[in-house]
């Protein structure tokens, strides 16, 4: 058993709600991420799934300390990220990179593809000649041609722009990549290409991924383990097989049953998640999911269930799935 590359412990991010015109005061908090713990092993893909507003993207940014946590810790390869000073953090961040949903919107339109891919290296102080060599290495790795180097982002389709985004992320040879909805903005026929590229790169370079997605089909294909988030908490975490075949938490079951069928007539028995996600500004007492849960019991309205190991690393936070004492 190798030591995990990432260990998050009690990660929390609360954004204060400030009210009042003359006397500004904090009247509450948006609990975007509320005590999240997990590990990611070297070379593994941990997927983080959930609906919009569940805190999955914030969790990804907390791991890289792009967002400062309200509390909790992140250890990256044995180093406590929150204790690093600005200079040390810059060095550590070379090993952690981020791939965005829509890379086009984060590119400077006046920069050529070569300059875009070289930018992280330039900021990290890599010499110009070494940058040029690395750009020429990276282009074929992500499926772009050498002559693409001198073109500009607007000349490329969505899928090709995501390839540029991936090349940028890989430029500094990271160990860990946070992929935040990397294929959600792409056409269906192009998604599979980019997913295959990400899995090839992981195999060839031993990359470790946190794969953030709302698409349960894509997650089933890419992940080793899956964490399901609801209102800032992980409600279930398990190996992919276990999560898809024997989901334990009622929310996971509702999510899986809501995915449209693969073919007509194959409509699965749908478990209705009642109503809509509650607000992170006013987190319900007890279990956060109890307002939507079809199996709600009196205890769910008062007691917050802890994330408990049901055996074999299958974790669930639900009063129903809690093992008998």
């Amino acid at each position, binding site marked *: 058993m190798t030591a995990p590359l990432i260990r998050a412990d009690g990660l929390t991010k609360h954004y204060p709600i400030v009210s009042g015109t003359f006397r500004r005061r904090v009247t509450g908090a948006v609990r975007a991420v509320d005590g999240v713990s997990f590990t990611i092993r070297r070379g593994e893909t941990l997927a983080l799934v959930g609906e919009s507003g569940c805190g999955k993207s914030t969790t990804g940014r907390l791991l890289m300390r792009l967002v400062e946590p309200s509390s909790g810790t992140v250890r990256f390869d044995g180093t406590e990220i929150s204790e690093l000073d600005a200079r040390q953090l810059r060095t550590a961040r070379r090993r952690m990179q981020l791939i965005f949903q829509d890379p086009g919107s984060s590119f400077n339109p006046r920069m050529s593809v070569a300059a875009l891919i070289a930018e992280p290296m330039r900021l990290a102080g890599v010499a110009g000649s070494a940058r040029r060599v690395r750009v020429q290495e990276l282009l074929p790795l992500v499926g772009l041609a050498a002559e693409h180097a001198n073109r500009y982002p607007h000349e490329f389709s969505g899928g090709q722009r995501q390839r540029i985004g991936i090349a940028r992320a890989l430029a500094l040879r990271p160990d860990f990549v946070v992929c935040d909805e990397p294929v959600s903005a792409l056409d269906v026929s192009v998604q599979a290409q980019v997913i295959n590229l990400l899995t090839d790169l992981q195999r060839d370079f031993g990359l470790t991924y946190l794969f953030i997605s709302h698409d349960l089909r*894509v997650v089933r294909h890419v992940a080793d383990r899956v964490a399901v988030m609801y209102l800032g908490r992980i409600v279930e975490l398990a190996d992919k097989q276990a999560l898809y075949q024997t989901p334990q938490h009622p929310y996971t079951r509702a999510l899986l049953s809501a995915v449209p069928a693969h073919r007509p007539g194959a409509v699965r028995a749908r478990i209705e998640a009642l109503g*809509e996600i509650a607000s992170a500004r006013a987190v319900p007492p007890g279990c956060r999911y109890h307002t939507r849960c079809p199996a709600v019991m009196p205890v769910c309205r008062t007691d917050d269930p802890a994330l408990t190991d049901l055996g074999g690393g299958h974790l669930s936070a639900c009063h129903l799935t809690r093992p008998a004492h």
Partner: protein
Amino acid sequence: MAETLLSVRNLTVAFQTRRGAFDAVRDVSFDVEAGRVLGVVGESGSGKSVTAMALMQLLPEAARVSSGQIHLAGRDLGSLSDRQMRSVRGREIAMVFQDPMSSLNPIFSIGRQLMEPLTLQLGLSRAAARARAEELLGLVRIPSPPQIMRAYPHELSGGMRQRVMIAIALSCGPKLLIADEPTTALDVTTQAQILTLLRDLQHRMHMAVLLITHDLGVVAEFADDVQVMYAGRIVERSPVGALFDRPAHPYTEGLLRCMPPLEDEDPERLPAIEGNVASPFAMPAGCSFHPRCPYAWEACGRIQPQAVTLGAGHDAACLRHGVVPA
């Protein structure tokens, strides 16, 4: 034989932009029968949304119908005046868009926006319009309608806003509802609720629906018939069952295969469609799909394939239509 509600013949929509001219929809013909759901599947640039805007006669300024006819219940929509068309919109064809936030007016209450078509189009009194609006909110299963009538769009969640948009679209009892990616901006649990609602309303009101989507799963659950569009043309059309069981166009086959399975065995590598979606400014000669097609012959780069009938209501525009394995 069901009655044909909408008939589109040889529709071509031309765009004139700063980068040049191109046809976004190219020689498209199809029918929608009363009370049936036609799914239109395609990727960005396939022409599916432009087709919808042409049906509504709401094309952007840069676009115009350069040829073809659109008949709704026997009337040629192209021959109507703006005023006549305004009364067709809402009463005969209504539309639901992907992003309800940009279709709702942020400064008017939900009630006002719901009542407007009822008073203007149907000529109801304010009291009658209010009663009907509350009824419509109940129909789309919004809890406590009187309270929501007073709310503003930003106070509602995405799913609730989409329910309101559906209520507005249905307010004048249209015969045809065009739903353009109605659930794409929604979370998966909300998507399931909205699709169930749409299917239920479609049955109860015996409406025809033109459902535009990029998601074959949504089509599998909701459509009776499907047409697949690529680069402005219809490449395959079929009853929904046959399309999934026996896709005949290589593009349809590719779309079906590249969707990762949720229950079946997961392949090591996803079968991807290589290459990129054709650019309207550099449209390949012959079949637009041939540069990405694993079965393409030399002739595919020269000849524009015509639709070939393969079975009841099933046809495909492919020179090699027999080649896709069953």
